[in-house]
């Protein structure tokens, strides 16, 4: 069973968990109706579409409102640290949460008390904290974009905001950054790096390069990284090995983008709506 942990951009949204259902442009969760905008809702939508296509159980979401002050994230961290041990999730994705190294340790401690260790996927703020804690290797998959890969490669940067210029430089080759990230133990066991060419990596190097189909406008659309992460999470939950799931997720996201014929003004919902059709092109 897949669990997704993240935030929604509403200050007064209470800590809520349960199975999610997609209904048109919204997500239903324990009596709440949440628009499928960028961020964790887009991730959940993608995972829910994959689960539906593959006939899997609906994902469970753990959500709280947080507009960046961190109060909601800390409430959610505290709840998870106390309760994760009593759950039986086989896969957990951590997403838009206030990066906090101390809480990240407590979450991992909670995970260690679960009956069977789940596959751990991290993206966004939680990935930043995972890297900074020095425990990136505890995670099965990170899904950074190229800018975030540069941050993982920079052993000194505690946040992408501080990535040093010589590392962030445009001409820097992704392959070199991947090596640096693994060298400094700042990468997960696998990474799906999102960019003009998507890369699937492990400590041995680059396993897959995916560059087609291509839609340059996707780079500007907020949430396309969230949909890749949700897609790979759904595929991992179906039992695919992480490298294979990452490869196929990159392809599905690219096809969903292609089918949406996006402009830089397209919103992520336009991509989400094409995930089912994209699955037909990629999944056997």
């Amino acid at each position, binding site marked *: 069973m897949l669990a997704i942990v993240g935030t929604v951009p509403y200050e007064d949204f209470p800590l809520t968990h349960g199975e999610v259902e997609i209904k048109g442009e919204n997500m239903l969760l324990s009596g709440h109706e949440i628009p499928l905008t*960028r961020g964790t809702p887009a991730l959940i939508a993608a995972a829910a579409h994959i689960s539906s296509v593959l006939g899997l159980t609906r994902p469970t979401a753990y959500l709280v409102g947080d507009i*960046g002050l961190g109060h909601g994230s800390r409430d959610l961290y505290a709840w998870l640290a106390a309760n994760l041990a009593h759950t039986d999730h086989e896969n957990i994705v951590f997403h838009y949460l206030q990066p906090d190294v101390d809480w990240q340790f407590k979450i991992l401690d909670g995970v260690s008390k679960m009956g069977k260790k789940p596959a751990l996927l991290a993206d966004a*703020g939680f990935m930043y904290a995972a890297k900074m804690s020095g425990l990136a290797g505890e995670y099965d998959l990170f899904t950074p974009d190229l800018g975030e890969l540069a941050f993982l490669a920079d052993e000194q940067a505690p*946040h*992408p905001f501080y990535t040093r210029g010589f590392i962030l430089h445009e001409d820097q080759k992704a392959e070199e950054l991947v090596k640096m990230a693994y060298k400094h133990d700042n990468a997960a066991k696998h990474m799906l790096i999102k960019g003009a060419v998507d890369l699937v990596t492990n400590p041995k190097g680059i396993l897959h390069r995916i560059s087609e189909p291509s839609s340059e406008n996707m780079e500007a659309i907020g949430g396309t990284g969230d949909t890749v992460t949700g897609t790979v999470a759904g595929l991992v939950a179906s039992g695919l090995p992480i490298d294979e799931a990452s490869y196929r997720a990159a392809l599905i996201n690219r096809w969903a983008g292609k089918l949406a014929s996006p402009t830089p003004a397209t919103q992520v919902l336009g991509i989400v709506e094409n995930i089912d059709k994209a699955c037909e092109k990629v999944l056997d």
Partner: protein
Amino acid sequence: MQKILKGIKSRFAPPKKSADRGIILFESTSEVISAEAVLKNRGWKIRVMGPPAEIQKGCDLVIEFPLMEQMNISRTLTREGITPLKIIPVVGPLLKPVDIFQIKDFGDFLMCRAANMKITIDKRTGIIVNVSGGGCPDVPYLAANLCGKRLRDAPAPLELGHTLCGYALEMAYQELKRQCWQ
């Protein structure tokens, strides 16, 4: 013998650099952003920087200031209702925020990237059409508040944001403004 050499070395070594700068720590990044605005408006020579490794927590910014001005700066912040968590002297180098921008022209659309944050406008209307990248929880909130507004009318990300991603978006937003009106 080694002890003696060490003694000689230390005697002739240049004196240790004493701290002439301090850093102000706050509970949250949004307080740093408010304090920065207050202090800069008062003409203080301060810089927003990254904290030394030993006090990093995750989404941190500090304000670097001339240590001699500690009393005056503390007083100014107190008057404005901003309470620092701690003020400490600093000797070593601090982390510098990213200052590289990438501009991408999509024809009718223009995108600017700073660190992990990207903002895109429609050049024909000046309307912000997308905010992408980032990982802190104010990013979806900022995106919801900026998209659909004209760049000249939209609130500055610093007014609404609370994290380093919000700060990076502010830099991209300012650079995009500069590109549009230079």
